[in-house]
């Protein structure tokens, strides 16, 4: 569907083929097709129950598909859990952010991948707090995340700051693909703007970004391409510049058929 631009020659870093997932008799996703190009921001949209969240959880390793394949750099992979996905360079910012309120920002950023002091201390799991803290400060500066102190408990931060910490955590540590679930859903106007800037900053660092959002204005602000899901199927993937809000809404609601087979997605 989309015109062949130079951009479309970009490498596909992550692809899903006919992903299928059901829960206790309900088919959440019947034909999840999706292809993420290198260094693009790709939005997945759809009405409630369209299967967006399921697709995202499959990509992030939080769920496993019943059928279909996930390919990273063209090779089929199994993402048994979010940690496995991270090992393939896929980091997810979940909607509830998965931050620990009782830990400070620095501890949260290294949660699950702490740096330990050299042996013999590492045998006992003794943390190298200084190194971790320094790297967190560097990362937070680089992304221009506005937090007063990385020693502050995450529970005491505002929604935007929490989102920023979660994003900073996702993009650090050799991540290539960042998956974000409703990054602006709980935020006010100003904080949403800051998060959208953050997404652009992540892209500018050469990473690929997948976002799921209900907010069409936000999607049109940051996304390069948009994939529309409807009733568990991929309807179409379109370039942001070649579509309109009306087209997207038409595809979401079924007023527009799109290329319903979903095969076009991989151009």
């Amino acid at each position, binding site marked *: 569907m989309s015109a062949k631009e130079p951009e479309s020659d970009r490498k596909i870093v992550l692809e899903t083929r006919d992903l299928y997932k059901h829960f206790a008799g309900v088919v959440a996703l019947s034909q999840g097709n999706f292809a993420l190009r290198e260094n693009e921001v790709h939005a997945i949209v759809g009405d409630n129950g369209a299967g967006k969240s399921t697709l995202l959880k499959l990509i992030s390793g939080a769920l496993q598909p019943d059928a279909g394949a996930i390919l990273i750099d063209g090779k089929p992979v199994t993402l048994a859990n*979010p940690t496995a996905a991270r090992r393939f360079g896929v980091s*997810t910012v979940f909607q509830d952010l998965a931050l620990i309120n009782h830990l400070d920002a620095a501890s949260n950023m290294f949660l699950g991948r702490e740096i330990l002091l050299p042996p013999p201390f590492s045998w006992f799991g003794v943390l190298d707090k200084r190194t971790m803290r320094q790297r967190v400060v560097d990362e937070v500066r680089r992304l221009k995340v506005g937090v007063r102190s990385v020693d502050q408990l995450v529970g005491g931060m505002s929604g*935007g700051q929490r989102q920023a910490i979660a994003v900073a955590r996702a993009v650090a540590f050799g991540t290539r693909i960042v998956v974000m679930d409703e990054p602006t859903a709980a935020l006010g106007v100003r904080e949403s703007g800051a998060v959208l800037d953050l997404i652009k900053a992540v892209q500018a660092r050469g990473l690929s970004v997948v976002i799921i959002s209900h907010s069409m204005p936000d999607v049109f602000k940051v996304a390069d391409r948009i994939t529309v899901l409807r009733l568990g199927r991929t309807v179409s993937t379109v370039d942001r510049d070649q579509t309109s809000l009306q087209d997207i809404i038409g595809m979401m609601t079924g007023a527009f058929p799109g290329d319903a087979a979903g095969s076009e997605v991989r151009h």
Partner: protein
Amino acid sequence: MARSTATETGTIPTAPTGPGQRLRLALLNRDVQRLLLNIALILIIGLAVHILGGGKFFTIRNIFALVVQISVMTIIASAMTLVMVAGAIDVSVSGTVVLSGVTAGLLIVHGMPTPLAFAAAIGTGVVVGLINSFLVIGIGITSLIATIGLLYVTQGVANLMTNGLPVIGLPLDFTYVGTGYILGVPVSLPIMLGVVVLLIAVQRLTRFGRYIVAAGSDPQAAFLNGINVNRTLTLCFVISGAAAGWGGVLYASRIGNPAPVVDNDLLFQVIVAIVIGGTALTGGQGSVLGTFVGAVLIGVVNQSLNLLGVSTFWQYVALGALLVFSVGVDAVARRDSIRDLRRRLTRTPRAAADASRELTPQLPEKGRET
């Protein structure tokens, strides 16, 4: 101290915190405040009793007596703090104390060398911890209920093993760890401090300590970050069980003849020490250091009333009052901070606008209605 508004996003780069600022942050921390309050209470009560009781409180003799009195409770409470931070509770400990004490006693009577018997007693606690974690994690029973079950089972098994009678015929050296002296101090002192320092180190310095907080604060988020929540909780139960097993040895050694009788006071003092120390029943929050100070405070109150010749009945009243006071102070502080927040929001129009923007959910998108 006014906190700056919570909405400053994307503006201020992270300033590295200097020692001065870190100290100020620490003093604003409610846990630190509680710790200081408890230490102040210990000193004030101690000093008052010292003066009233004719200079008998701050004496080596009295302090050693206090240490012996609180050692079992402190060891168990320190370990159980980890379970509570992990979001669970372990009330089986006082059953474990009885079971492990009886186990050690019987093994020694039947000819096992004392150190091995002590190790077996700790092993008993580990087994209880493993059963607890199986019930809580494997089957999904609430930890309070599962461990109440184990409290009765351990007590019952201890009675079955001894026919409900105290174990007799133990050699005299059995009482050494509970009542003896080493290098001029009660053996209980280095044992207690060793356990407390070890657990403080585990909590503050290790990855496991951090995972305990994560598992107790938000298990789902912890899992999404690749933390094995079940393994973390299991290890906490095992540590708690082992500490209760070791506490059982100390307890039995102090009495001389391990009896299959559960000391309910011990269980409740353990819980009171943990709560006074600032550990939340909801998980994610609490420190072994706080529990240690809480245990010392309980010991000081009990010992003070003993010194002044106040009856045991009043000691119960004092302990209850201490618990209610301690938790009450926290509740009032929290209520005040909410009131402050509200006042601040209504005072400055700018802050109020920021706050309402924060609190208002984003409007639904035009595209969403079908």
